[in-house]
């Protein structure tokens, strides 16, 4: 999987919100890449910066108060942070598309499903006729497993169930064959039997269309089930990255370890759950030292004063923790991975 080319590269991204309380660095110098055709997960607890990361990539950070203050987002070697609003509008949908947690808020209640799908197509395919757009819309509804697509075109969002609306959103995101699909908590608002259907659909589409998927979730089960690689975020930073197999079997960062031990597993009963002490920090509340130090059972002096780097601990594994600094592999290996 690491032989696959990086199609989207996030490098040193910083996104802040400027509020009455000063600058809040919601995303604080993060790096990761999405490889061609893969399903990459981003996992973390609420407020760790997952949604701000995806909005930054899409050029949709609400501004003001938000602003990308540093770093670059390379899509096929073009820096998205440097594009004009107009250029960015062409990238959205065409190259990179996104679906959100609550499909109802991203569908317009006043227009029919068909109307909205066709509009999404015609923005990017200006030379297409209405007929062509309509056919494509119906084709997409069929693709995402919605029955009676013809009738559905005339329906309005409120007439659909949550699961159907999320399918429509996926169809809309995929109308122009984007290379990357960003899905921010796409199943969090859905029931578990419907979630299973949607995750299955996303996996199928990833395989059939070779669309790379960036799946954002707080659910480790969803990651294990759906993703090939995973990025773990904590307090606005990436704390660990690697193949799902490795991260679940040999997690390195104390936060990842704690998180994995905290989840109840439906297959067997643990006598007592492990729990990470303390609270999930508000972004910006910790500015010096390792962001996890206050909750970490391994913390030592240095952790309180210096912020560890993201150390490359194997050709595919990275960890932001001083305990793994001496396991860092040589720069040589690193270039092999990133090329």
């Amino acid at each position: 999987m690491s032989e696959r080319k990086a199609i989207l590269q996030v490098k040193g991204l910083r996104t802040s919100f400027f509020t009455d309380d000063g600058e809040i660095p919601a995303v604080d110098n993060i790096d990761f890449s999405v490889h061609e055709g893969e399903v990459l997960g981003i996992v973390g607890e609420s407020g760790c910066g997952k949604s701000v990361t995806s909005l930054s990539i899409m050029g949709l950070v609400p501004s003001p108060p938000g602003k990308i203050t540093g770093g670059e987002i390379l899509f096929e070697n073009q820096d998205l942070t440097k594009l004009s609003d107009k250029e960015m509008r062409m990238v959205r949908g065409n190259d990179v598309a996104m679906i959100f947690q609550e499909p109802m808020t991203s569908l317009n209640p006043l227009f029919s499903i068909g109307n909205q799908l066709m509009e999404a197509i015609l923005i990017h395919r200006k030379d297409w006729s209405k007929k062509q757009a309509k056919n494509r819309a119906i084709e997409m509804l069929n693709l995402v497993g919605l029955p009676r697509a013809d009738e559905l075109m005339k329906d309005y969002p409120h007439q659909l169930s949550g699961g159907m609306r999320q399918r429509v959103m996926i169809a809309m995101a995929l109308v122009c064959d984007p290379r990357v699909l960003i899905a921010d908590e796409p199943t969090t608002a859905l029931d578990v039997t419907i979630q299973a259907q949607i995750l299955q659909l996303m996996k199928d589409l990833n395989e059939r269309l070779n669309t790379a998927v960036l799946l954002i979730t707080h659910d480790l089960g969803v990651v294990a089930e759906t993703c090939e690689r995973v990025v773990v975020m904590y307090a606005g930073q990436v704390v660990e990255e690697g193949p799902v197999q490795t991260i679940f079997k040999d997690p390195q960062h104390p936060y990842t370890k704690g998180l994995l031990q905290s989840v109840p597993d439906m297959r067997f009963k643990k006598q007592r759950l492990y729990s990470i002490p303390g609270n999930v920090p508000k972004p910006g509340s910790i500015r010096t030292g390792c962001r996890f130090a206050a909750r970490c059972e391994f913390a030592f002096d240095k952790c309180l004063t210096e912020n560890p780097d993201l150390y490359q601990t194997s050709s595919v594994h990275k960890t932001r923790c001083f305990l793994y600094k001496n396991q860092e592999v040589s720069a040589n290996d690193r270039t092999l991975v990133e090329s």
Partner: protein
Amino acid sequence: MTEPLLKVEGLKKYFPIRKGVLSRVSGYVKAVDDVSFFVNKGETLGIVGESGCGKSTTGRMLMRLLEPTEGKVVFDGKELTNISNDDMRKARREIQMVFQDPYASLNPRHTIEKILEEPLIVHGLGDAKSRKKKVRELLEIVGLSSYHAKRYPHQFSGGQRQRIGIARALMTNPKLIIADEPVSALDVSIQSQVLNLMQDLQKDLQLTYIFIAHDLGVVRHISDRVGVMYLGKMVEITESELLYDKPLHPYTQALLSAVPVPDPNFVRDQILIKGDIPSPSNPPSGCTFHTRCPFKMDVCTTVVPKLEEAEPGHFVACHLYGERAALINR
């Protein structure tokens, strides 16, 4: 066998649907439709099911925060469903609720002390001094500090607010706690803190829990027995181990197989059930699961399956089991 602490028989809640200028009743949402179960002293009964299946409505009827349309609730030998409102208020001392969103249920303008004291004042328990003492005691018990008493709800994180919600429920020394999605809004690392707290409190204070949730992992972890609801009905109920290791009802089987497991090597036989949950205002005839059931038989579309003991201690409402199954198989 000792008497269960709580017994529920034939509980129903039909919400009228009103239409038109005259608000004539045009139908009913059958939110809870003939549910029976019991809870033993000191145990945790988990209730699971997907959104809208009637879990919260059931919980609220047990305390008569919502009047049942029909059915009987017997708590500690006393029938709650036919006592006066005054007597019910007294009974509520012994049954308390913990909610999903602790923020919405804590008055933002009151200090934690005032919030925690309130149930004691309502029930006329203790004097000012002993009430304050109890507040400080309980704050410590739920893992907060007595100096938190003077603070306001917004000064706490979600997990801390849930601890306050639990402390408030414990103020009157209840026997039964009905917890409706108490950890659903919390992050994983905070969720496990609260679950551990609830387990410790149960042991120390001999509490009985009804734990309502949609997360099947959480429910297995905390429950001794588990009931599964679908469209207002209890479709299966048994000991937790039995339910998870050998689910009998096709819906339970599908539900369990849909839960993502935090293990990338886990291979499961996923039963993907098609379609959505039908509306409780117009539930399917016969077995309400028949529109999605992979094992549907003719009888399922016409005859409502009763909750019957298919195996010792294992109750299920499905024509594949029990007397009717014996008849069909013959």
